[in-house]
């Protein structure tokens, strides 16, 4: 067999293997396309990609207006124990929200503030890859990582897959623990996973997400990351920002100005 033919067969074989992998979605397309393995740097898919910039300097200590608004709008139950807890958005210390970032000689001010954590609506979401029923999926038209509560089997594979602890499971019936029943969003049943949905129900009505709308300090900015003229892109242009655990290649759509 001559060299060329051997090379041809080798390349075709590799191509077919890679193609099969990509086709079944096991490997993201980007991991084969790029010459440099830098899934964190490139631009995202076309169309809208909703994203958020959190200016943590403006976020006021002790204020929980965004959290309260979100949890009220979405009928998130309040349990008094950490084990059953369900949360879509919450505040945690610096070293918990950004565990990979250097903690050495961080200014006292940075260390003592608390930071908002929520679903990152990753451009390359591990939870979507893990879900065996497509009950969690990325919306092709706007990049939101959504949940179908009626399809979820409650295997919690997505919770193991999420590197941000953004997902909660309904360990018990959530309905008795809902403080004030909101008509804007359905309640969930026992046995399914839930998380922040970037207020897709409000976006459909042309409203901003509840947390963004309720923040009195204007610390949260929401917009299309793929639109270079959008407010979020302007902020990203002018400020140095962080994404949580960007080294994992998940490409979070939530950015932090520290």
């Amino acid at each position, binding site marked *: 067999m001559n060299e060329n033919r051997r090379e041809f067969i080798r390349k075709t074989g590799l191509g077919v293997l890679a193609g099969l992998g990509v086709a*079944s*979605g*096991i490997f993201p397309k980007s991991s084969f396309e790029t010459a440099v393995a830098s899934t964190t740097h490139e631009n995202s898919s076309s169309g809208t990609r909703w994203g958020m910039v959190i200016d943590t300097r403006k976020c006021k200590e002790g204020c929980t207006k965004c959290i309260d608004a979100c949890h009220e709008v979405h009928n998130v139950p309040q349990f008094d124990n*950490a*084990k*059953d*807890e*369900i949360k879509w958005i919450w505040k*945690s210390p610096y*070293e*918990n*929200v950004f*565990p*990979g970032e250097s903690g050495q000689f961080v200014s006292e001010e940075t260390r003592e503030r608390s930071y908002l*954590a929520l679903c990152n609506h990753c451009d390359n979401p*591990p939870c979507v*890859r*893990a*879900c*065996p*029923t*497509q*009950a969690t999926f990325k919306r092709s038209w706007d990049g939101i990582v959504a949940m179908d509560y009626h*399809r*979820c*089997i*409650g*295997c*919690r*594979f997505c*919770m*193991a*897959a*999420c*590197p*941000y*602890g953004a997902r*909660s*499971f*309904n*360990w*018990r*019936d959530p309905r008795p623990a809902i403080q004030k029943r909101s008509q804007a969003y359905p309640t969930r*049943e*026992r*046995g*399914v*996973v839930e998380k922040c949905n970037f207020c897709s129900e409000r976006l459909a009505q042309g409203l901003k997400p509840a947390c963004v709308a309720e923040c009195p300090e204007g610390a949260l900015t929401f917009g299309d990351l793929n639109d270079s003229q959008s407010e979020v892109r302007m902020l990203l242009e002018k400020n140095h920002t962080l994404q949580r*655990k960007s080294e*994992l*290649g*998940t490409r979070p759509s939530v950015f932090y100005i520290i």
Partner: protein
Amino acid sequence: MIEKALKGDRIYWGWIVLLLVIISAGVFSYINQLTTGLTLTGMGRDVSWGVYIAQFTFLVGVAASAVMVVLPYYLHDYKAFGKIVIIGEFLAVAATIMCVLFILVDLGRPDRVLNVLLYPTPHSMLFWDATVLNGYLLLNIVSGWTVLGAERKGVPPPKWVKPVIYLSIPWAFSIHTVTAFLYAGLPGRHLWLTAVLAPRFLASAFAAGPAILILVSYILKKTTGFDAGKQAINKLSVIVTYAAILNFFLLGMEFFTAFYSNIPGHMHGLQYLFFGLHGEGQLVPWMWLSVIVGFGSLLVLLIPKLRTSSPWLIAACIGIVVSIWIDKGVGLIIGGFVPSPLEEIVGYIPNLNEIIITIGVWAIGILILTLLLKVAVAVKAQDQA
């Protein structure tokens, strides 16, 4: 053939009744869990998988290990395994059924489990795991039952069963590899994010599985007089020895990579399990028990004189099973969740309801194994008569 399971002495029926009582308690607790929710377990937002998934992981290994008797017997015509191969296959059947049950009891919405088949999702490793596990169950039931049925009639097994048996060999490796992929492909879970996870799973499976097989053989010999043969037991004990060495070697690799590279995320899981992290170390005594019992048993196995003496071999096999059960059935799964993605340390203690369900599932598996082996032994006895 199944009617052979209905003829037994008082000890046999006593055992069956005992298992049924335990199963009833398990079923009762499961109904409890179905009506109240998984809040009746020790699992929570941070440690979201617990003892159920851990048992599942351990038992996939036990199921896969049947290949350690099937491969030498069918592929290399290793005659000494002639009598034990059916025990291995039936052990695989019972273990696989337990695996499926442990997944079922872990689901928040078991009524929707068919969604996995209705919406096949090739990019999910759980989809593949469900596929290979059910396939493996089918392969082992078909090959085991057919060969045994032929033996009962005193005829050679039908030709079509050979390819089924050959297929079950790579399939056995696949079930445990895919099970490792459930964990090894998740970003941000450092303890699991290791390329040696699948090899480690296979090594520990091929140590613990044949060790269980040796123990089952001794129980059968004691209770039914069925003798798998000294040569088969000796060979199995050698397999256990090599696999156990490989298992501890691979565990050592994890330690080297984590601690020599000194990357905090990579060390945290092992630190939590073996030394305690930030003063929290609820699993530390367990993990050291696993290491000490494991090495002790390995030492016994390494000395040919002890390995070939029944009491020592039984003790060593129990030791290997306990050691690997702790490592895989407790440490590996819990350790993957601690510290949490936000580097918080939240412990996990299974609660009573969860433990009763777990024991109930084990009892179902043991009942199935008892019935299958009863049939197998009856057929083999008829051969000799």
